[in-house]
């Protein structure tokens, strides 16, 4: 990669930021921490950009740095935090984890793009763990509508996954 121009660096940052965050999230379990780790990793590369020499595989380098930082962060936090999930991701290869992080990033964006009402219902169910009936009461709508909206949300999320799968391998 050699010395970055600021534009190349910006492009690289924008390409990898989200997948790297979701990758880090598997270790940190906190979005704030994940973002910090990724930002620090990029800051490190930026500061060393003139001395860093050639990075043969920048992508692998980024993921490895993020993983190392995430791990040392969770080790530091171990003292005052019960690690319920020291992630089971470790038994898969780095390539697989990267692939998974990239798909997670696309899922995140797809959720972002859901129509507001559908997104709200979807998140109440999947994030907050509310039952359909509870959601219906909360939002003053029928259970049927909740089912319907969640079905549609899942369908569009799955379609993105399939669309991208067929785009790459189909």
């Amino acid at each position, binding site marked *: 990669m050699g010395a970055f*121009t*600021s*534009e*190349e*660096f*910006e492009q690289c*940052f*924008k390409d990898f*930021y*989200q997948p790297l*965050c*979701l990758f880090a*999230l*598997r270790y940190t*379990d906190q*979005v704030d921490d994940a*973002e910090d780790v990724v*930002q620090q990793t*990029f*800051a490190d590369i*930026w500061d060393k950009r003139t001395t860093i020499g050639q990075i043969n595989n920048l992508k692998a380098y980024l993921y490895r740095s993020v993983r190392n930082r995430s791990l040392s962060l969770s080790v530091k936090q171990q003292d005052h935090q019960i690690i319920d999930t020291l992630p089971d991701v470790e038994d898969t290869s780095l390539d697989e984890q990267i692939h*998974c992080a990239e*798909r*997670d*990033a696309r*899922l*995140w964006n797809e*959720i972002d793009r859901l129509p507001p009402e559908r997104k709200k219902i*979807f*998140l109440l169910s*999947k*994030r907050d763990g509310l039952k359909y009936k509870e959601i219906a009461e909360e939002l003053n709508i029928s259970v049927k509508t909740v089912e319907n909206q969640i079905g549609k949300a*899942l369908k569009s*999320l*799955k379609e993105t*996954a399939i669309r991208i799968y067929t785009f790459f391998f189909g």
Partner: protein
Amino acid sequence: MHNEQEHKWEERIRFVAKHYEEGRLDTDKAWKQFASEKGIRRTIPLRRYLLAIASVALLLVGITSLYLWERSKPEWVMVSTLPDQLKDVYLPDSTLISMSGNSWIRYNVKEYGKTRREVEMKGKAFYEVTHDESRPFSVQTNYTEVEVLGTAFQVHERSASVEVHVATGKVKFTAGQDQEKKSIILTKGMSANYSMETQDIELQTKEKPNYLSWKTGIIHFHGTPLEEVIDDLTDHYNQPVRSRTSIRGERLTATFESLPLDQILMIINQTLDVRLYVEK
């Protein structure tokens, strides 16, 4: 989908949804924050920068050359006359050109008077050139050039010859093709003739008192051999004058002012007992 895949899918949805917050992980926002912390400003890569400079320079060169080309493109003013038409033309420096019939002159408005005053012509024209030593005046025909500083002269370009008469002042008469150019200085009252056939300039020794008759309307003869009288009349009226009898040794002294040709011929015939006529 396979059961295990289905399970993984469910797990991923749960994972992403669990952490999802509206407006988080916004790449552009993250970059802006990062860039401002690190003081990264958008810089244009050098190569593209140079390329941009190069294209702008190229564009400028293009526009400039178009402009220069446009500016150097001659803009001709051309004046021409019908066979029997006489015309006076004033140039921008108030040089006067008196044009005879069946002639044209032209000059480039963009260049005329800048460092030189150049006129091209065909046919016959009398020049009264405004004196200006810093900007030489010249008249060009196909193979000749007359250069002056300020004077009055006439150029008569025919198909086989070019004749120059100087009324006042001094001119430099240059003629010939390419390397074979010859020059001669003519002063007041002198005339010279360049012949296409011999490709040489010949100084006229004989006075030609009537070379300006087309302009003044006055034809003057003083003991002139009748052969020359016939030539001058032919020239002046642009009609072929012939003689039915031998005219050897006959001479004429007379002044004709704005008379029709047949009247002049009648007068000559009666005076000298010759039989001149116009060949139709």
